[in-house]
């Protein structure tokens, strides 16, 4: 949109919209109250940023690497017997009992070794990369901002309006989130307390086409939006409810998630909530000198784990579980070896957490392999590209088609099945177009291929990149409908493979990445 149109439209919007919006909004809040829909339209994603670079190796602990971890980081290592077991290979930091409970109930999952190629260890550059989902280009938009821009082109011109009454994203606290930076404006509205009502005086300034004029317009838009969105948020918070007794008022994240539950249950139609915890840049005093079980990092992880457990409990009690999913992220992990200050320096990949009831996997990706010798500056190598996690979330959770998702990223996207187990009816439609989905992908020991058949003969083979057949998976008749066939790939060497599904109704090829 040209700036001239933008200016003109803003002038129209400012004429009387805020008042109109307030009237409409109050009706819509009443109407949607507790009206839980399973469609992607009404879904909410909660993103928790662990600011500073979380030490993944002391968060999700590779139990099968413990002996070598004690070589690399003896001064901060959690005692082996204190690690909370999830599987025989994987454990959690002992302060994360909340996430452990959720994991055991299928409501939390872990994606291992998430990062990006050629890790940049600058906090700022790396946070820009994580916020934008772009590595090569100079980012000016966030990954959620691009998704929202494609849904609501031209924003903020013409918003809010009688259809879209609510802010599209909420950033808890006082600042907006760069994850939600769109082309023209940031989609997130900062909320520190949704129960505060306010109404700011309007202003009649116009944009004179200079940098100054742009600021004038920005400030004026903020005034209008603050009034309109503020009223919506307040109405939702007042109409909403919260039922869990697990929230801890002294835990800031817990309080903020409680507000989020309150707003969602009150019918606020925001699609994304961004929350932030500071303090993960643990160069020193990550653990107490007296005990590695306590210290700054333990408190941070406990705060996260307890808050998320309370939030999930609340969603369950409110009957909202199938509408809300969550994820964490941090700009990088930390180096494998600790330093002498009881801390760790900037590193590479790290695990991230997903939470909610619509998860597909429990743990995606193998444990990192820890060496028995200390190599200066070594981090955990990346195996799963964070951009593919974002892409898969957009696809699984918001139902964005694979081609649309691909268009939002600069790399060739690999889709994982992360949170589509509630998508009854959504996937078949896409599968019927002669497609197949492999998950997890990349895979380590086994994977599942999901496809549809029409009461027909089906033959499935695995080819390597030179198109040599390396395995036959299935050869037989299948009934009409969706099928999941297991692929045992533990014996394959690492690399790219083509899975070929030969059906009477057509040929389907899809790519599988085998990792070690």
């Amino acid at each position, binding site marked *: 949109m*040209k*700036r001239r149109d933008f200016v003109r439209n803003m002038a129209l919007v400012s004429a009387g919209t805020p008042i109109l919006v307030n009237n409409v909004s109050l009706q819509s809040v009443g109407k949607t109250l507790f009206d839980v829909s399973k469609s992607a339209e009404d879904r909410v994603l909660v993103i928790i940023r662990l600011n500073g670079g979380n030490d993944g190796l002391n968060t999700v602990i590779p139990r099968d690497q413990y002996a070598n971890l004690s070589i690399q980081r003896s001064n901060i290592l959690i005692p082996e017997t204190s690690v909370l077991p999830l599987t025989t290979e994987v454990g959690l930091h002992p302060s994360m009992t909340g996430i452990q409970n959720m994991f055991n109930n299928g409501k939390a999952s872990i994606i291992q070794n998430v990062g990006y190629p*050629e890790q*940049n*260890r*600058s*906090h*700022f*550059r790396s946070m*820009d990369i994580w916020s934008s989902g772009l590595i090569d280009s*100079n*980012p*000016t938009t966030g990954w959620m901002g691009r998704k929202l821009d494609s849904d609501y082109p031209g924003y903020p011109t013409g918003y809010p309006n009688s259809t879209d009454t609510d802010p599209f994203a909420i950033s808890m606290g*006082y*600042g*907006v989130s*760069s994850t939600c*930076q769109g082309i023209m404006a*940031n989609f997130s*509205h*900062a*909320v*520190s307390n949704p129960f505060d009502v*306010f109404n*700011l*005086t309007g*202003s*009649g*300034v116009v944009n*004179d*086409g*200079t*940098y*100054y004029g*742009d*600021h*004038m317009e*920005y*400030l*004026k838009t*903020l*005034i209008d*939006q*603050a009034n309109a*969105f*503020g009223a919506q948020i307040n109405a939702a918070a007042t109409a909403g409810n919260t039922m869990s007794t697990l929230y801890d008022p002294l835990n800031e994240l817990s309080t903020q998630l409680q507000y989020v539950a309150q707003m969602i249950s009150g019918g606020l139609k925001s699609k994304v909530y961004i929350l932030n915890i500071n303090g993960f840049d643990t*160069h*020193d005093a990550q653990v107490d000198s007296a005990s590695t079980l306590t210290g700054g990092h333990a408190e941070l992880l406990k705060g996260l784990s307890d808050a998320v457990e309370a939030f999930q409990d609340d969603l369950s009690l409110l009957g909202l579980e199938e509408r809300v999913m969550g994820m964490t992220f941090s700009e990088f992990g930390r180096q494998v070896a600790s*330093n*002498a*200050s009881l*801390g760790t*320096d*900037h590193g590479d990949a790290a695990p991230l957490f997903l939470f909610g009831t619509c998860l597909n996997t429990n743990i995606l990706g193998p444990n990192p392999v820890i060496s028995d010798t200390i190599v*200066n*500056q070594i981090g955990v190598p990346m195996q799963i590209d964070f951009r593919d996690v974002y892409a898969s979330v957009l696809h699984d959770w918001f139902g964005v088609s694979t081609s649309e998702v691909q268009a939002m990223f600069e790399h060739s996207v690999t889709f994982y099945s992360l949170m589509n187990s509630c998508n009854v009816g959504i996937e078949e439609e896409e599968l019927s177009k002669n497609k197949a989905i492999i998950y997890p992908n990349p895979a380590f020991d086994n994977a599942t291929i999901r496809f549809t058949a029409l009461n027909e003969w089906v033959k499935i083979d695995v080819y390597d990149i030179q198109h040599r057949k390396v395995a036959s998976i299935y050869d037989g008749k299948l009934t009409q409908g969706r099928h999941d066939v297991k692929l045992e790939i533990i014996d394959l060497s690492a690399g790219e493979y083509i899975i070929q599904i030969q059906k009477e109704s057509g040929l389907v090829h899809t790519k599988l990445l085998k990792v070690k």
Partner: protein
Amino acid sequence: MPQDEVAQPISYSMAPYSGAWTKAEAGHLLRRTMFGPTNQQILTAETDGMATTVNNLLQVPVIGEPIAHDSQEIIAGFGTSWVNSVYPSDPLLVNSVAEARNKSLAAWIIGRLNTESVSIAEKMTLFWQNHFAAPFTGDPRATYDYHALIYNNSLGNFKQLVKDVTINPCMLLFLNGATNTLFSPNENYARELLELFTIGKGPQIGSGDYTYYKEEDIAAGAKILTGYIVDGLASDTLTNVTASFNATLHDSSTKILSSHFGGVSIPDNGANEYSDYIDIIFQQNEVANHICRKLYRYFVNFDLTTSVESDIIPVMAATMISNNYEVIPVIAELLSSEHFYDLSLRGTLIKGPLDMLLSVFNSTESVPGFDILTDGIMYSTLYSYGDVLGQSYASPPSVAGWPAYYQEPAYSQLWINATHLRLRFQLTDFVTLYTGIPGNGNNWKLNILTFLDNLSSPADAIAVIDDLVDVFVPKGMDAVQKLILKTILTNGQPDFEWTIEYGAYTADPGNSNVSDPVRSRVEAVLARLFQMPEFHTL
């Protein structure tokens, strides 16, 4: 904001500005270099002309030390400096004394801003605070020491300042230099020294290669910087926090820098090795480019267009290099340049919280003026307002400083979102219309009558509004907005009614029956002005 849709400057010349020198140019210069000039200061600058005013701005006034005002300070005497005072032996009392000293430090910083003279020193000190971004430490004596360093060298030599900051106890504590040893190098400071403080991070062009330096330079830098330790923290016997060099903790191996530094070797030079290393970094001209871009963004505009990159930054950097990294010649050239006064570059910055809050008080000539305790409480309260609005002076949110100074694409727009805007309006209302800043049973309100009396023609309603616009906003105001303000001033009466009201007050200034109505009208005008978008830009 796509730059091709915004009116661009007419002049990219760094030659001295020779155009009209009016109140508008004088106001532009002082608003960009101070925390809120008064009407009189702007008029004086107009009379003095550009060259004299720029010269005046480039002086660094001598400042005092923070003084004890809080009752939890039980070592230093009330009203005396605590910067060389020990802590109590009782560990339970150390925290409360440190808290008292932090309050005093906050009051000292804000008090300085509130009483600044016509000098760029405070604006430059905030620039360095944003650049080096060391926050409060556990011992306020070290925090003070760091603040005194960046203030006293605010217009000094950039290279020397980097050296001094590198071994300043506050910085050694902040970025783990104090625990960076031969036995376990800690890369925290070594990374930021390159990425943020000197050469800046370029695009990543290879594995661990950031155009101007590589990961291996960070590893080498960490080794070079090993051996400095900090002593005296919260000590009950040592009167200062000091840094010292401990040779046994220093990595004495020869360090080799990457190809970006010509693969140069840095042999062991003990306590001075850090200085050798910084000298080598400063041989790269990119250091000057990096700091000049930051200065440009801070004083002129966020948008480093291709023309700015080709015509402005190289001139600034060349001036800096030819003056061996002295700051004054660069600032003098910039503030005297045609480019700086280009009309399209006025109002290009949104005021940060400190700019916004201090301009309310400073431009209205408002200081608390009670006693040491009361002023101390009020100043530390004003400090906390800055914190609430997103700018706690001594606690930048990260080592990169405040995002509004560096984060693309929004830059200074990041100072304000809908939540912050509302807080700004509430706070300005509070200090203008309601009780003012409370403290020790008193209230610090705006000094409305003195401010009014010092305007050009206070009896003339139109002139009053014109002066307010000249003082507080960067590019004037349209007739409608001015009329709104004048209508508030006259309470909807004809203009001559204001003249009569003001005359009644000057005839009997001690009579609150005539002064109160005049004051309350101006308060109402200012409260409205402070809610206009124009006021929130520089």
